[in-house]
């Protein structure tokens, strides 16, 4: 009896949050089966799965989904690679380590609106910093946010600038908690530094990196603010992610049911993808495959 008493503390909380999620999800599902528009109050009809069929055949929606995937994968991978490299570089005692770490926090605590605006000014084709730097190398000018082939990557640069430090901080924390003995043992056995890194340090960081990757991937899928500030989905839809398309459906076209359908599909898609990733990574590890 007493052993189970702790359950009384957390079970109600879990039950409450669970119930709220389930109720909201069912309500949203119900709304997606109608054709609710803010401009046609009182004329809602039950239209079954029509919204889902519409999205399936909507090339604009499918392209937006593809851009979401592209943005998430590339941004997450680059953030992980750069973040890990910086963390490994900083993983030693040096003068000013605390200051370096404090500076690292600046992008993370900045609001995305400020980040978006700052980068928009930097990417301004005629008076921005980016083209000025290029002109020193006798390159450019590049129309960073106006060229549909480039715009998505320009937004990605802002996202990478803001979130790489997050990867650095988490990786540094787990690096510091690693025991030093296995590495030293490898060095005594004659391993070179890159061998120590590849065969000892990285495998030990594996789990921490996966968690960081998951958090970043989830956040990337949801990225909205910097897109909204920097491009609003343009030019020529080249930066319209599924998230943004949902926003436009809701607040430009006032097509609430379709917007919710988009959000619902994005949620399902993300959950399935992340669960697969999670299972692949952690189950494999649990079986001792890694």
């Amino acid at each position, binding site marked *: 009896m007493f052993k189970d008493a702790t359950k009384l503390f957390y079970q109600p909380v879990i039950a409450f949050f669970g119930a709220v999620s389930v109720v909201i999800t069912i309500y949203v599902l119900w709304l997606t089966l109608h*054709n609710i*528009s*803010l*401009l*046609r*109050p009182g004329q809602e009809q039950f239209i079954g799965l029509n919204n889902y069929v519409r999205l399936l055949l909507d090339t604009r929606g499918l392209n937006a989904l593809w851009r979401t995937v592209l943005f998430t994968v590339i941004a997450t991978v680059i953030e992980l690679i750069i973040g890990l490299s910086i963390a490994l570089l900083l993983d030693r005692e040096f003068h000013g380590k605390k200051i370096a770490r404090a500076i690292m926090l600046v992008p993370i605590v900045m609001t995305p609106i400020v980040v978006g605006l700052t980068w928009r000014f930097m990417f*301004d*084709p*005629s008076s921005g910093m980016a083209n000025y730097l290029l002109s020193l190398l006798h390159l450019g*000018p590049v*129309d960073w*946010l*106006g*060229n*549909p082939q480039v715009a998505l990557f320009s937004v990605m640069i802002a996202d990478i600038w803001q979130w790489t430090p997050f990867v650095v901080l988490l990786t540094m924390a787990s690096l510091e908690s690693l025991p030093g003995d296995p590495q030293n043992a490898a060095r005594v056995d004659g391993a070179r530094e890159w061998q120590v890194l590849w065969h000892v340090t990285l495998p030990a960081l594996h789990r921490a990196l996966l968690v960081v990757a998951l958090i970043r991937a989830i956040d990337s899928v949801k990225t909205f603010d910097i897109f909204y500030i920097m*491009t*609003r*989905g*343009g*030019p*020529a*839809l*080249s930066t319209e992610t599924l998230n943004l398309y949902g926003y*436009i459906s*809701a*607040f*430009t*076209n*006032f*097509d609430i049911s379709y917007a919710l359908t988009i959000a619902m599909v994005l949620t399902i898609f993300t959950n399935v993808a992340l669960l697969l990733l999670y299972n692949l990574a952690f189950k494999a590890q649990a079986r001792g495959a890694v």
Partner: protein
Amino acid sequence: MKRRQLLALTLALAASSALPAIAQDAAQPYAGTHIAVLMEGHPTTDGIQALLPEFTKETGIEVELEVIPESDITAKMLLEFSSGTGRYDVVQNNIIYIPGFVQAGYIDPIDDLAAKLPKYLDRADFVPGYLNTNIVGNKLYGLPVYGESTFLMYRKDLFEQYGLTAPKTFDDVVSAAKTIKEKSNGEIVGITMRGAQGIQNVYVWAGWLWGYGGEFLTSDGKSALGTPEAAASLDAFAKVLRDYGPVGAANFGWEENRVLFQQGKAGMTMDATVNGAFNEDPAVSSVVGKVGYVPVPKQSDALKGGSSSLAVHSLYITSASAQKEAAWLFASWATAKEQQIKSFGLAPNSGVTSQAALNSDEFNKRYGAFKEAMLGSINQGNPQYLPTVTAANEIINNAGIAVSKALAGTASAKDALAEASAANDAALAR
């Protein structure tokens, strides 16, 4: 005992402070009423905001004025309307949404209020073209706050230097843009226009669409963007901006475009008439006195509608408002000629809707340089310049994507418009 004394004292104080309020009641029957107003960020709004204390002093009505960007205002009010909260008593919006709002029952006609409380109203003083846009089914729904049209602005000094004359057709525009860019060795771009996807690029491109003989909707309510006229207009618009326009035009909104022209970095621009007020303001402009103003060009004489816009933004009283009379007093006060005339000293406001304000010395002094062209454009202004159906926003959004695609070169004007046309037909059928 002490507590009772304190209570008595408090009561006496409360009574004495309430007395003047009671005395004023006859003159200010709505004293103490709170109304909430949602308006667009615009020079006119700045003027009204600055004058607001006078309204409260006169009527005793407290106004909570919320100002947000025009691009977000419709969504914001629709969310409140659809949940019936009555959060806002007065809202400001573009005429294009009004038929939809009337049909949905979100705003109320104001004829009865105008008859009951005519204190601030001088109906005959409004520019008729502006006021009439607010009449739906013989009922008046709103009072115009600001109105504007579009025109072509060109640098008189450069045109003289290169031997050019003011453009009358779009072909003239293209060749003038080419000359300016080439003869200035690319130092000055030929023309700058808004290219940002959405209402921004559509507001300017629509002038080309109508000017080439195109239209948004056919008379039987179908999309008309798939026509050769529409394709020709978009093709020319995209080409001139790509070849002789500034780098980055694809992301230019009203502000970026206006600033570039004010800095003297472009030979021409085509935009709202309010830009004239900025061009002629020495505090922000380096081209004061150097700008010529002419109506938006026409490519042919057989047009389905004028190529200059008629954009009217008005104040509306919401159906869910609990204090419509106080709301009406505010709406009629804010749009009255006295306030419009006072606003000249407060903000670059050339979009006045009162004829008295338009003909005032103050207006002539400040905006005389473009007054004639502005009135000419307004008089030819096309009330259907942007579609005014329920799905207007979605149609504009789809057209904006097509313009953006043609501008970026990811699709031909014809293909991009065919796609937009199909999407618009789907939206119209929904």
